[in-house]
């Protein structure tokens, strides 16, 4: 496996000025993400996991420290369209068909028509929505909409996929299914994925690296390298190895909370 580091954060600090005074969203965050990694960020609300993802995306600007994405600043990386971002809600435009929604980034980035059509078909295949390009979002279930939004993030072939609790609003059965599909997709496309979640089984099942975070101030309390194989059937979740990693994550979360009480 290639061990090239593509995302680096050094002593990252971010303070939001709010009406109730400053909120320390991130404090002294250091992290390396290697090419091809599947990194999960897990922690309670307010631990800064989403904020950190938004820093990588250049949607928030850290108040101190350094962060680089593909050797560039996050803002330069954003302008170079280095990543696809999947939000908590699918956020498909209701007035565009599924195909039209996936074309949105391609139109903005100026791909020609033939290429757009070809890419829409390719990513729809990837997320198992072949034949749905003419449907409108309201004709699809929540899980299918979220898959379409993943397809939209994949359409322009960025190497990095940033996902902010993409399955948080879905029920557990759909979520299991999408987790399995996401792993297959990751294996096929060899993308680097940063994935925010607050589900321990989801984090352990998906990740090669689990970043446990704790709140007030948001910081990293543990980084766990997963020992699970890359090939993961759903029933791996019953294996002793899986349970052990889940334990470690839970301990990390508890330790983070302990300072707080």
């Amino acid at each position, binding site marked *: 496996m290639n061990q090239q580091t593509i995302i680096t954060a050094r002593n990252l600090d971010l303070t939001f000025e709010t009406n109730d005074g400053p909120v320390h969203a991130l404090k002294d965050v250091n992290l390396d993400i290697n090419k091809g990694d599947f990194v999960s960020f897990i922690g309670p609300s307010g631990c800064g996991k989403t904020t950190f993802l938004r820093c990588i995306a250049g949607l928030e600007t850290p108040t101190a420290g350094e962060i680089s994405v593909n050797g560039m600043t996050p803002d330069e990386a954003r*302008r170079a*369209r280095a990543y696809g971002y999947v939000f908590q809600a699918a956020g498909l435009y209701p007035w565009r068909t599924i195909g039209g929604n996936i074309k949105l980034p391609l139109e*903005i980035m100026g791909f020609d028509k033939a290429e757009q059509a070809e890419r829409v078909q390719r990513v729809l295949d990837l997320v198992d929505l072949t034949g749905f390009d003419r449907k409108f979002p309201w004709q699809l279930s929540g899980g299918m909409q979220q898959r379409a939004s993943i397809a939209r993030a994949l359409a322009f072939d960025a190497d990095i996929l940033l996902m902010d609790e993409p399955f948080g609003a879905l029920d557990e059965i759909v979520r299991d299914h999408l987790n399995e599909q996401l792993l297959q997709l990751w294996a096929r496309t060899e993308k680097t994925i940063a994935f925010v979640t607050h589900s321990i089984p989801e984090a352990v099942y998906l990740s090669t690296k689990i970043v446990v975070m704790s709140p007030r101030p948001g910081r990293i309390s543990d980084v766990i390298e997963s020992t699970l194989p890359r090939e993961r059937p759903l029933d791996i979740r019953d294996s002793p190895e899986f349970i052990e990693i889940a334990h470690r994550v839970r301990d990390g979360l508890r330790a983070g909370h302990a300072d707080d009480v």
Partner: protein
Amino acid sequence: MKSVLPILTVIAAILLFWVVSVVPMNMHLVADQAQRDALVVTPDTPAARQDYSGTGLALRNPHLIPLTYTFVRPRLPSPHQVAGEMYKTIFGQKITSKRSLVFHGWVTLAPTLLGFLIGTTLGILLAVGIVYSRVMDLSVMPWAIVSQTIPILALAPMVIVVLGSMGVQGLIPKSIIAAYLSFFPVVVGMVKGLRSPDSMQLDLLRTYSASKSQGFWALRLPASAPYLFASLKIGISASLVGTIVAELPTGARAGFGARMLVGDQYGQPLVSWAALFAAAITAAALVGVFSVIERITLKRMGMNAS
């Protein structure tokens, strides 16, 4: 089809109220006329009759009640009289005739449509400016609100007179009043519509590094469509009201507004009422047209019309 029954019920209730009101409203006039025609009327002097309400007089002279519905110059015409007058002036005249309501309708409709076009265009442009420029947001919006607090009835003659003295007459001054009334709902609706995309949708465009104009065409403009249609429906009826108001105090010789005034001044209430109803029907038709366009457009856009 379910909505037809409640609508018909309301219309029936209004008609009933109208029909019942005709009797007391016209009773005194009918009694005076009946006396001149040598019919028996109690009490038998107009002065004595003033002591009675319309209803009281009707109860003492039940034989005169039918006459209140056919009186030539009634205070309140009965529905069939208005319908008859409308039929006569819409279908019974050549549409080029000055007695034709269709002719007067077009005289009012043309400035309504032109004014609506001007008002809508102006409203959309202002809304785009307000959404994209903080300076415009702070400077234009308060004036737009203030503009609507000026009584249009006071403003209309001034606009017509000033423009008249500059040699501008006919269509344009009326269109300006219509535009003045219709731009406001469009500004308010469009500002809300253009601002309707949530922060997540705006962030999504930032991750694509989309330009402001791409964001406008791809996200803000289509997202504003439902708001725009709601505004257009208010705007078109406001335009019609504006045009009629512009015709009222300015001695216009044609148009719904002129007909209403002429009917009042020359003691021909049927003319006023026919013009009033024709204007209402025109407004309903215009709003109806926009409702249909709205439904088709939003359906094609995959959004369910409200």
